[in-house]
């Protein structure tokens, strides 16, 4: 390895000393929700969590999908899963999406919704906020706890219609 490393290192303040070009991109999108997610969002408006089941392997997809990717065939029926489940994993975030620091941590995690059981390798799981405090995240006591969704008063048909999942026992 007889090469000398090349590349010119610039510190943040050096950026002012060199020629630069600045540009702000404008890209706006209207994503179509499709059949499955449309029904899912409309279900949320009515405080229901809708999933889609593949009768061949028995897997329930939440959020719903019109095809089963394991069996590679269309899924068969709409099912309503409970808005209760078990905490699979949980974290506490002190940074925003722009990498800025926040005082109060945001608690999020993955919830395995019922009906399903602990031995399932794949299950209907939802990524969402969990109503808890930093301490309970840190001491790992939240794993496996039963939780239920706290629905907002005014729902519009969005994943945000659920405020968070709170521990019930």
């Amino acid at each position, binding site marked *: *390895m007889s*090469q000398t490393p090349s*590349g010119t290192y610039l*510190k943040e303040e050096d950026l002012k000393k060199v020629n630069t070009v600045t540009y702000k991109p404008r890209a706006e999108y209207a*994503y179509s929700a499709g059949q499955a997610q449309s029904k899912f969002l409309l279900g949320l408006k009515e405080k229901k969590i809708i999933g889609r089941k593949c009768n061949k392997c028995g897997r329930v997809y939440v959020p719903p999908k019109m095809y089963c990717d394991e069996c590679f065939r269309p899924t068969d029926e709409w099912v309503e899963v409970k808005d209760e489940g078990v905490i699979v994993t949980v*974290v506490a*975030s*002190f*940074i925003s999406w722009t990498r800025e620091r926040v005082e109060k941590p945001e608690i999020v995690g993955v919830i395995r919704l019922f009906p399903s059981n602990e031995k399932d390798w794949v299950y209907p799981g939802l990524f969402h906020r969990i109503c808890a405090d930093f301490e309970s995240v840190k001491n*790992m006591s939240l794993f496996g706890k039963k939780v239920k969704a706290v629905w907002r008063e005014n729902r519009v048909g969005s994943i945000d219609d659920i405020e968070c999942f709170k521990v019930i026992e």
Partner: protein
Amino acid sequence: MRPNLYFRRVAVIGAGLTLFRRRLLETPPELAWEAARKALDEAGLELKDIDCVVIGSAPDAFDGVHMKGEYLAHGSGGVRKMVTRVFVGGATGVMVPITAWYHVASGLCDKVLAVAEEKMSSARPHPQGVFRYIWDPITEKPLNPNLIWIFAMEMHRYMHVYNIKKEDIALVSVKNKRNALDNPYAQAAANITVDDVLKSEVLVWPVQLLDISPVSDGAAAMVIVSEDVARRFTDTPVWIEGVGWTLDNTEWTGRELAYPRYLEHAALMAYRMAGIERPDKEIDVIEPYDPFDYKELHHIEGLKIAKRGEAPKLLKEGVFDKDGDIPSSPSGGLLGVGNPIAAAGLMKTISIYWQLKGTAGKMQVKKPVHTGLAQAWGDLMQASTVIVMRN
């Protein structure tokens, strides 16, 4: 997958790397050229000898230039040549030599220049903002997630299922940053302790600042040729003996996060091709992808080099140290050298190449090495690529 294929033997005869730093002056094509030029020099070839070019670069949104493959082609020697661009998120770095491998193994090309480059410093205020678009726009993005959340969730699940403490995981960060002190290209080499890691800024519990690899600019390149060409140009070719790659679905919320099943598929594909039946006994040096410290352990288990949940124990025993039985990340890995998304995986492959060739300088591991493995991982807990090389 049973490889009932007849293909030519393929070897690596040259490699080049640029400095990995948070911000470099060079434009992306200039970075690609720096690395490519060095690779050609080591191989003893000129650009006119190369017949095909493979380019790997992660999302255009980082560099801020659309159609990045075409933009980079200029600096990768891809003008008026057969060019292929590959992209599988972070796994791109190892997908690049794999793609170059099948170009040569199939007989289509004789001499391939493979280049991976990433310039993350153009995106402001922070390149992390670009990762925002990896999420499903309807069911995940409205929650305003940060990419680190998904790693934190996987890390916490891994800790819970196998009862592993943060102190054990922090040892990876300590080991890799220390290994990077011997690497002249490294950005984040340091002599830190487990305490330093545990006292660093908490970003998304349980992930802290020193658990993560830094954001970087950088490029890497390799020259990959057929057996005939290799024997003409060098006495010490490094053979690519096994490759594997897999993609999983994006429903990371619906599957067990504590074990990377997609990596197992990729690893088995590579092992079958290379004739490896007991990876923990037959592989001498490894470079598993380590954008986060727990990821190295997670991947070592997925590669079947340690049993599930056992990697931290072996780490504590020193098995993965530079002078241990299976040295892991002797280059310092992403934690020590830096993480320009696509170039990082190729940097790890180049580290194995140097180890097998004996030219790793101060990074060379103590024991004699004959079989090495490099692995990369990418997307939303989805893609994995594995490459096995022998000297």
